């Protein structure tokens, strides 16, 4: 089945170059810890691409490699290349990347706790040079997408709820007028209903504001529901990828990531069988 899925991509006609392409990157932390062992992926303009996988699979590292935040954690891309709109990302500072339209919403929200919600949003506009009016207009736009934030605008972010902080973090990224948002684990620690509403907003932002999303998620179910395309990471490698619909129907994905199984309990032999079937890109 997975072969069939990948065959689909290969035959897909190459039209416009992707907004972002990650080519076989390897990431090493602290000069010794090999975390990504060759990850390749593409994000088309206007897409919502999901990066799926368990804890420690390398989702966050992939996102941080793209936004060039690895340096701050002593990580380094040692092989491969990352191109955003054809430009190599590795030679740019995070600041320059935000100016070019790539911004990351980090795992665990990372709001500025002692700043109010509104001040948090305004820091998102730090790199913009287009004056007060444009920023004020976007502030209203963010408040329209997240009405809850408007109510809480004067509250210190540290004292707001997890959901509000997630909205604040996404809103803050929006304030930079990005082409692409790297969204890391938006569902973390949130109630299912709230997760649904966050993803609903992601979908709307994608459709109405034209923001491209690359999101890392452990919650495979919801991610595949909203994404257009998905990559599955295991141990620092992409083991499977395909259209979200196809991945949802894939037997292995169903069994190992969605927790659905049509044939009851399986023996360990079948798991080994799955491993053999994995496609190694690296």
């Amino acid at each position: 089945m997975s072969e069939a899925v990948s065959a689909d991509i290969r035959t897909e006609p190459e039209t416009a170059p992707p907004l972002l392409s990650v080519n076989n990157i390897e990431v090493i932390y602290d000069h010794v810890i090999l975390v990504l062992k060759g990850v390749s992926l593409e994000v088309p303009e206007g897409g919502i691409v999901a990066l799926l996988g368990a804890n420690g699979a390398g989702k966050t590292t992939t996102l941080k490699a793209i936004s060039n935040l690895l340096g701050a954690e002593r990580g380094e891309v040692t092989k491969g290349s990352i191109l955003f709109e054809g430009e190599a990302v590795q030679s740019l500072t995070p600041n320059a990347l935000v100016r070019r339209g790539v911004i990351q919403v980090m795992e665990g929200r990372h709001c500025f706790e002692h700043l109010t919600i509104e001040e948090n949003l305004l820091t998102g506009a730090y790199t913009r040079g287009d004056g007060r009016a444009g920023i004020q207009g976007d502030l209203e736009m963010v408040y329209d997408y997240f009405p809850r934030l408007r109510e809480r605008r004067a509250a210190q972010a540290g004292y707001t709820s997890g959901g509000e902080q997630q909205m604040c973090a996404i809103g803050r990224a929006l304030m930079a007028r990005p082409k692409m948002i790297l969204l890391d684990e938006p569902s973390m620690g949130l109630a299912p209903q709230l997760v649904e509403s966050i993803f609903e907003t992601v979908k709307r932002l994608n459709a109405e504001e034209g923001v491209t999303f690359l999101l890392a998620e452990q919650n495979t179910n919801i991610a595949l529901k909203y994404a257009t395309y998905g990559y599955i990471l295991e141990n620092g490698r992409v083991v499977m990828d395909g259209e979200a619909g196809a991945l949802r129907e894939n037997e292995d994905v169903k069994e190992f990531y969605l927790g659905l199984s049509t044939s009851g309990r399986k023996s360990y032999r079948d798991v080994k069988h799955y491993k053999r079937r994995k496609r190694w890109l690296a």
Partner: protein
Amino acid sequence: MGGEFLFFIETTISGLMAGVMYALVALGFVLIFKASGIFNFAQGVLALFAGLTLVGLMEKFGLPPWAAIIATVGVMIVLAWLIERLVLQYLVNQDPIILFMSTIGLAYVLEGLGDIMWGSDVKVLEIGIPQGAVDWLLDDYGLYIEKLEIVAAVTGAIMVTGLAVFFNKTRIGRALRAVADDHQAALSVGISLRTIWVIVWSVSGIVALVAGVMWGSKSGVQFSLSLIALKALPVLILGGFTSIPGAIVGGLIIGVGEKWAEIYIGSLVGGAIENWFAYVLALGFLLFRPQGLFGERIIERV
């Protein structure tokens, strides 16, 4: 009005004025601590260095005071840039203690640099701040208040207002506070830490210059100027390391407290309380309110 009461007022006012001077030094600490979590041991030396540079420029190059002050501001900005370039940029992501140690090193380097450039003798700083007592207060009410202290108080007030506006209303100020809260997140929204550090060290250098000018005018520019940093410590503990108003109020409390303690308690125990009273007060605060009067509580959600 009895002489007793007049004396009390005089003591209080002189304490408040001394407090402003302490606050000026403490402010420099707060700025850097807020934006980078570094306790800058070199802040006192920064004030000394600024004072030396100012005097040096006036004496050796014969610049008028206003030109010398502008030039010194320039020197402090270049210095901030150099500190970031040569020291801080290599220490990003290190433990606070490592950054703290580096500022101790920096203190010695700056001290030596100041001596090499301008010599180590005690210098008189004369930039036209009026000296002596305010005449009409002395004549009409019998109050002895130094003009210098009033100038210091007014300057302090202007500076604090300016800084408060800068921190709360401007884009850069907001970015500074953002960096103070979360380095990583600040990076992720495109705030350049290196730019921010240069800015904050520059501002702090300028604050140090003001402190250096005030203290230098009062007691000459000399090595002991760098030791006022030690006086700033209890001020910080009292006011909170992250609060600009805290630095001011802390300074005032320490200033007044010292004078009162010296005069009203000192006589009971044989005097010389003034020098250690502040530290005892700080100790009390550490025990009962470690974040200080205005310090930010560490927000922890459960």
